């Protein structure tokens, strides 16, 4: 009897998580898709003017879409090489004691609330960028640097696991053929770990695309297509975060439609991440 009860409880909780995913999906699509229907997919995604309360109204999300994409790519350019380098260091080079100290420190980096990152970017990095590189300081570049640091812990921990999972026989085989340690890492270990590293990159990409709070604080929230990394911009997420509180009617629907676009992007990334991490080397 109690066995069955426990089974039933566990099954219910498992179903609950599935149901909440279904409810969220349904809710967002229901609220957002009709507007995309009215405006049309091309003008919605390709339009450059976002004026949801003006006359005439205009719902073009291209500036935010590009803002999100540039920011995500920028964050990857900053975070992935650094993250993979740290992972290589921790898995291959660092003395055991040092790796043991670094690992919790990096996990702590992942635990810092994003508003703190935003705060640091706003008060430290933005003035620096404004002073030495020009522009308003609150920019794609500033946000990309901070976001790159924010995704590093994900990249590091998953890449490190992938590198540690490379069989030692690969390393020994390579070293015994006269390869240096660096040649072995570059020519054998990293290629063998590539599916795990790629998965870490895609998860980092998802994090960068979805980050809202820190981005609102650092990117300047300007509704324009950014032409330079030093320009202010806005993103899909920060626009929703900023406008939803006072939006109504079609404006509100348009924000949900933005959410649909975001949702589809993130879903696609997750599917790719799963496919890549399940793919066997070779």
């Amino acid at each position, binding site marked *: 009897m109690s066995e069955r009860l426990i089974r039933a409880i566990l099954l219910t909780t498992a179903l609950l998580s599935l149901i909440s995913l279904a409810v969220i999906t349904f809710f967002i699509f229901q609220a957002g898709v009709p507007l995309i229907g009215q405006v049309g997919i091309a003008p919605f995604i390709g339009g450059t003017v976002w004026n949801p309360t003006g006359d005439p109204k205009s719902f073009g999300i291209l500036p935010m879409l590009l803002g999100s994409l540039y920011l995500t790519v920028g964050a990857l350019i900053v975070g992935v090489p650094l993250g993979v380098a740290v992972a290589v260091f921790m898995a291959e080079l660092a003395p055991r004691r040092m790796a043991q100290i670094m690992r919790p420190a990096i996990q702590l980096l992942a635990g810092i609330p994003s508003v703190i990152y935003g705060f640091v970017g706003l008060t430290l990095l933005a003035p620096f960028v404004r002073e030495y590189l020009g522009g308003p300081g609150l920019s794609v570049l500033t946000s990309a640097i901070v976001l790159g640091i924010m995704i590093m812990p994900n990249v590091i921990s998953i890449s490190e696991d992938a590198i540690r999972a490379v069989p030692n026989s*690969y390393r020994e085989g390579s070293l015994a053929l*006269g390869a240096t340690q660096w040649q072995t890492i570059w020519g054998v270990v990293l290629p063998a770990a590539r599916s795990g590293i790629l998965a870490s990159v895609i998860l980092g990409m998802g994090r960068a695309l979805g980050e809202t709070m820190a981005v609102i604080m650092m990117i300047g929230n300007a509704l324009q297509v950014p032409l330079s990394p030093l320009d202010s911009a806005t993103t899909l997420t920060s626009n929703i975060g900023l406008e939803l509180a006072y939006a109504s009617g079609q404006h509100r629907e348009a924000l949900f439609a933005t959410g649909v676009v975001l949702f589809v992007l993130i879903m696609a990334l997750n599917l790719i991440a799963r496919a890549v991490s399940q793919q066997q080397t070779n």
Partner: protein
Amino acid sequence: MSEYISIKNLSVRFGSVEALKNVDLEIPRNQITTVFGPANSGKTVLMRAINRMIELSPTLQRSGDITINGESIFRPEVDVAVLRRRVSMVFALPTPLPMSIYENVIYGLRLMGEKNREKLDAQVEYGLEAAALWNEVRNRLHDPALSLSGGQQQRLCLARSLALDPDILLLDAPTAALDPISTAQIEETMIELKSRYTIILVPHNFHQGARVADRAAFFLGGECIEVGTVSQIFTAPRDSRTEDYVSGRFG
């Protein structure tokens, strides 16, 4: 008998573990010397000392010397990468790299900066031919090496070493993971190769040593107990511990 490799009073420790104790051993050129003994007798450590793979362990302590052609391999000016190409090692378990058959064979040559296609192709054929694998893979050189069977993978690893044209081959139980047919092929290959290379073999079992080797060295607990010709060691050992082992009383 001309000594080629000389191991002089070599002791190796890893932390508190004493792996080799005052080993003295002379290895002649163009012969197969088999280094045999029970588990943990120091055979593998000895092999890994000759191409300095033991130095991968951070807790290594070494005393004594190894010379090849009279020159110490531990001199500071020795480039470990060059040494490991001259003294090439094949491991107990096949260790193909996760790339194509072709790329595996030329891996060492690539590292040396060899780019000439014809030279690379020639070495691939030479290595695979010498390792008795050429006929089986000649039509699929660009397939992944991991798609080969275990026996083929091990012969690929041998081919990879031979393609570097080394002076010395260290074979650490190269047939341990293989079936009898592949084992016989590798043993035949070894005997053919000794005219060109000096081979040190940790045998899969001591019968293998008796079948293919010219000289034998019996190791026990990190010490070299007895060295001699194969026929002397296996039929008339001088040390009672060697006799106990080869007559099957322990191990």
